[in-house]
């Protein structure tokens, strides 16, 4: 397994999450509404960050499947806050590539009339930091 210490520390620092607190109960994944869409599930996220196995995460679409609903944060008995880790990895992607997952130009095509304003705002916040 490849460990990327620099990125690992960076992600831990950005997120303020201590992945070592995880006791591997899997409640985050049990609770995740986007579980089936994901390649890497919340508990794996935590585990992979803890092990410095960051590269696959950077390239995984799972990053953008996370709804940031924070159910995992709410339910985690160890206060690990997996969603914050996901967010931190997203940020790391942006910083590393200098490229956003979406740009403002991509957005109009995705909008249909049912799209709530709040979703747009939240999408911009999430994908285009």
């Amino acid at each position, binding site marked *: 397994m490849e460990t990327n210490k620099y990125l690992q520390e960076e992600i831990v620092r950005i997120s303020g999450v201590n992945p070592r607190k995880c006791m591997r109960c*899997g409640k*985050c994944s*049990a*609770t*995740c509404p986007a579980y089936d869409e994901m390649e890497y*599930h919340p508990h794996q996220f935590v585990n992979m960050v803890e092990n410095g196995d960051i590269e696959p995460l950077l390239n995984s679409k799972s990053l953008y499947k996370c709804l940031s609903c924070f159910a995992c944060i709410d339910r985690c*008995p160890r*206060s*690990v806050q997996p969603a914050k880790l996901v967010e931190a990895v997203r940020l790391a992607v942006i910083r590393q590539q200098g490229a956003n997952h979406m740009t403002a130009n991509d957005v109009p095509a995705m909008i249909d009339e049912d799209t709530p304003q709040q979703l747009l705002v939240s999408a911009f916040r999430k994908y285009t930091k």
Partner: protein
Amino acid sequence: MQRIGVFVCWCGSNIAGTVDVKAVAEALKNEPGVVFSTDYQYMCSQAGQDMIKEAVKEHNLTGIVVCSCSPRMHEATFRKTAAAAGLNPYMVEIANIREQCSWVHKDMMTGTEKAVILGKAAVAKVNLNTPLTPGESPVTKRALVIGGGIAGIQTALDIADAGFPVDIVEKKPTIGGKMAQLDKTFPTLDCAACILTPKMVDVAQNENIRIFSYSEVTEVSGFVGNFDVTIKKKARYVKEDVCTGCGACLEKCPMKKVPNEFNLGMDNRSAIYIPFAQAVPKVATIDPNACNMLKNGKCGVCAKVCAAGAIDYTQKDEFIQEKYGAIVVATGFNPISMDKFDEFAYSQSKDVITSLEFERLTNAAGPSAGKLLRPSDGKHPHTIVFVQCVGSRCDACAEKGKEYCSKICCMYTAKHAMLTRDKYPDTEVYVFYIDVRTPGKNFDEFYRRAVEEYGVKYIKGMVGKVTPEGDKLKVQASDLIANKQLHIDADLVVLAAAIEPDQSARPLATMLTASMDTNDFFTEAHPKLRPVESPTAGVFLSGACQGPKDIPETVSQAGAAASKVIGLLAKDKLTGNPCVAGSNELMCNGCSSCANVCPYGAISYEEKEFRMPDRTTKVRRVAVVNPAVCQGCGACTVACPSGAMDLKGFANSQIMAEVDAICK
């Protein structure tokens, strides 16, 4: 001024090999207070001790300094020697010139120099020593056990067996505690009632045991051997000594819609009630919050039907004062509230229950008479999901749950799963676990049987969400091994709720000045070596009040606590350590700093009247140390800013004299 004799031991060549003992004796001769100084090959030998005794007589010595091995070795020996010579044993000081000098230094000159300095420090200290006498206090030969669960019952029986009177105070109308609510016990699966109720009967019949049921401890004062305790016997509106427990009143009572706490509210009882059939004492109790007669004076049926005439609506709370030599805390545990764990829909569905409720559901004396039926519709459940670690092992910062492992859940869940599969083989049973912890005799075998013989489906992972939908409970969980998210339509969900100390423990700890940890479990005097004693002398710990425990562990701790109590009560009087703290009341300002740091609750406060310089009097609060309780650590002496608190045998002045002598 003291008349000090200095005795320098050679310890064969152990000391004399690296320390010029003659030179040490010579040098110390010139120290202030020293009137005699000599050396000898083996000071601890009979001849050496005789030499000391003679010197005491011949030179009228008032203090002794022995330069020898560690005081941990022979301090007791030389104290006895001094006592035999008519000196107070605490007028002896040891200068450790073997372990801390001759054995760690190679050079004769260095060793001798240091030995002289250590000797001087000891002389400086003896110059300030005063004779000390250990205090004695009598022992009241009666024990109090607070809590009447299995822990309290076992402790009381063991103490009573040794011939000492014991009182049990139980806040519920009956003893028995949590164990009385259980169905079967792991790992042997014998019925809880079958093994518990005979013990309860033993308690009731034991002449040395009194039961104060429906009672609480309201006040504790005193100290080891001499506790004064006030017990509040709550009014049960039934004369305990008259009631025969026939149950006629229960049948006739018109108020029958009171949630039955013994069955955790899953069925109802009457306003006058006996918690369960084998209750001890088997006496009815009127619930004043439910009884119409007590609430508005309109009823009185029970009094009419009671043939014995035991009903007394005018009964008042009664306060009983009693003296005890020892107190055992056995306040037990409760499952934590599930209110904060709404992801499991506990408050939304009747079919999400705790394990303790499951116990009642499967118990023959329970609300469903032992048939496993769903509380909502009374149907037989075909899919049952057990969730482990609900509220246990949570992060300290999390807003809900406990940091510790509740220890018993893995085993009782295995038991529940196994029993379910045994009785209802058509039932699918899932157990979601994080780890299965089975350290205990025959425990892992038990768990494996559940899996291998009974086909219980153990899934590593946690349940994330339970949603009631129609008559099903949609369980969403993760299977970490399969790396899948599972969706199970369950009929019943059982939560292994964490356990916590009973709420009565915290106020009780305050009354007893016994320390507690942040989780409100009582702290033991030493985590390894004194696990059943509280740091507060005379207070002992039994059962889950000290930490999560299963029944075998509780019973063994109960026995251990009892043996400690018996050891204490067997003594006629307690001899204290004379090196205790004492407060100079003229200097004490009553600020409580000392009491705050005292681990033994040895410090109390008195309002004392003082004559003031202007000839008026003033009442001031001052600290008083109970020498029978003080262990002499000295924490208070440093907490005291005015220096009013000092420690006998290690006084400020003595330690400073040692510092001075060493730094000279």
